[in-house]
């Protein structure tokens, strides 16, 4: 069973599933009230240099209020995994990122990310490449508790060459297979439709890679549109996509994905996204945007007031 190729990208986080097991064993299994403010959650659980990730993608169900708090507290040298539009752009715009397990960071219909360009082209941020499913599969491997997962993406390309994947000869079929190393996050940030005070969480619509990332995170901070009674969870246990024992903090955050969307609840705020697209073009205007929406507001409530209740309500599905 030969190793045919090894990607030369740096592996920013070791797939140490045994250490992950030890960590998970120590997480509390009792039903503990985990509600706290974003300031407290980010302050307690995110450290400079941590390997973090966000879910979902493309301004859809993104943990914007949590990421804004990370920016506000200036957590730095972050090793960030994933794909992002607005939420990862904020971290890059604030120069808080040291490495990227990157698959896609851009502004979708509005083009490339200027923040990404500035940070990477200057050499401040180092990138290891993956595909979208590649990152999700890496979370899946960690969620399974195994150090790698075999896939048929990335084969034959520079994406693989600049990744930390390996190609082996399949011991059952003899064909080349790509093995992706598990990606265990120090901290995962996920925004959900509803959760109870213990962290049992439900999501409506597409699930993205929430199930996988939640299970791949040593520490998991949830923000939620609303807190619901545990009885709501117990009535429909098959809707629990994230069980409480994975969760370390539950932060109530209505409009927590704004200016992104939350399916069935509110649409995305196109003017504000365009405001960011414009602002992100230069460091100075980027800074001004961050001042306006993050540094100069105390918390998510103040942010929502700055945006304006009337404007927010207009985004709601009736």
């Amino acid at each position: 069973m030969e190793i045919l190729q090894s990607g030369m990208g740096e592996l920013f986080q070791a797939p140490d599933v045994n250490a992950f097991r030890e960590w998970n064993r120590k997480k509390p299994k009792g039903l503990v009230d985990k509600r706290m403010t974003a300031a407290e959650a980010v302050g307690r659980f995110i450290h400079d240099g941590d390997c973090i990730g966000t879910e979902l993608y493309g301004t859809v169900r993104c943990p914007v209020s949590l990421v804004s708090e990370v920016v506000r507290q200036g957590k730095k040298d972050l090793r960030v995994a994933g794909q992002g539009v607005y939420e990862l752009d904020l971290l890059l715009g604030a120069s808080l990122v040291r490495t990227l397990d990157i698959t896609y960071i851009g502004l979708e219909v509005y083009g490339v990310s200027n923040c990404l360009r500035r940070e990477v082209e200057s050499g401040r941020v180092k990138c290891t490449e993956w595909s979208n499913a590649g990152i999700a599969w890496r979370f899946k491997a960690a969620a399974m508790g195994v150090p790698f997962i075999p896939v048929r993406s990335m084969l034959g390309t520079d994406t693989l060459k600049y990744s930390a994947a390996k190609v082996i000869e399949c011991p059952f079929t003899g064909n080349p297979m790509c093995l992706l190393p598990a990606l265990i996050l120090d901290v995962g940030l996920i925004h959900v439709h509803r959760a109870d005070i213990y962290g049992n969480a439900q999501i409506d619509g597409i699930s993205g890679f929430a199930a996988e990332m939640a299970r791949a995170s040593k520490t998991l901070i949830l923000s939620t549109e609303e807190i619901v009674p545990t009885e709501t969870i117990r009535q429909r246990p098959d809707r629990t996509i994230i069980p409480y024992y994975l969760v370390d903090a539950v932060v109530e955050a209505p409009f927590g994905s704004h200016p992104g969307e939350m399916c069935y609840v509110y649409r995305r705020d196109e003017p504000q996204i365009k405001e960011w697209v414009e602002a992100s073009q230069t460091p100075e205007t980027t800074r001004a945007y961050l001042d306006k929406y993050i540094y100069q507001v105390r918390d998510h409530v103040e942010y929502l007031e700055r945006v304006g209740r009337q404007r927010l309500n207009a985004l709601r599905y009736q």
Partner: protein
Amino acid sequence: MQSQNANPGGYNPAELLICTAARLMPDNTTAFIGTGIPMLAASLAQKMHAPNLVAVFEFGGMGAILDKLPMAVGEENTFHRALAAAGILDTIEAAQRGFIEYGFLGGAQIDPYGNLNSTVIGAHDHPKVRLPGSGGANDVGSHCWQTIAIMRQDKQRFVEKVDFITTPGYLSGPGAREAAGLPPGTGPYRVVTNLAVMGYHPQSKRMMLLATQPGVSIEQVLENTGFELLVADTVEENPPPTDEELRLLREEVDKDKLYI
């Protein structure tokens, strides 16, 4: 672009690309759809000849009825009255299992074998331009049976060698995909541009001009290609968008003028 002036009815380059791509989508098949032109093309195809075209969106939406246009890959409209709303691994694994026939791709550069670059211009570790990266492109290009690239055509984009192979085309040529471990029988199918529609030579796997867009000459296509483009024995000229296509596109598909 030339096409706008060449057509008395008047349509813009985006409308031309959308109509050209829509015609490539048969009914009762599955297609991975990305934001932008593929989305509009899929919606138009559903309203024209392919009511049972199954649109699959990477982050989980399958079989949506595309009444409204999404602005992002995971938006509610990607699973509006869909048959299933799952997660990214469910859709990509369906592709890995052979269930997805067509995939749509874009990129900053394409080479004669259909390899695509959406990662960097210049060297990876000292890039001139850092582009967004693979996203789902590599997955779509690895697993779908047939991929269709939609791009603007010029010598900067159609190059002999891409700076970075983000997404596999035929790699270095015949047999290379299979040797790399990619599923046999998969690969690039068409390239749709403002100037032409291209396919690939069945043996050499090199890009080959099949049809020009309305009012575009073969020479114009060759002049805007940075590598030796094969030319089919018979090169058709695509018919321009029909009145009905344009009406559906403007009045129903993109009635809020988000894209066109």
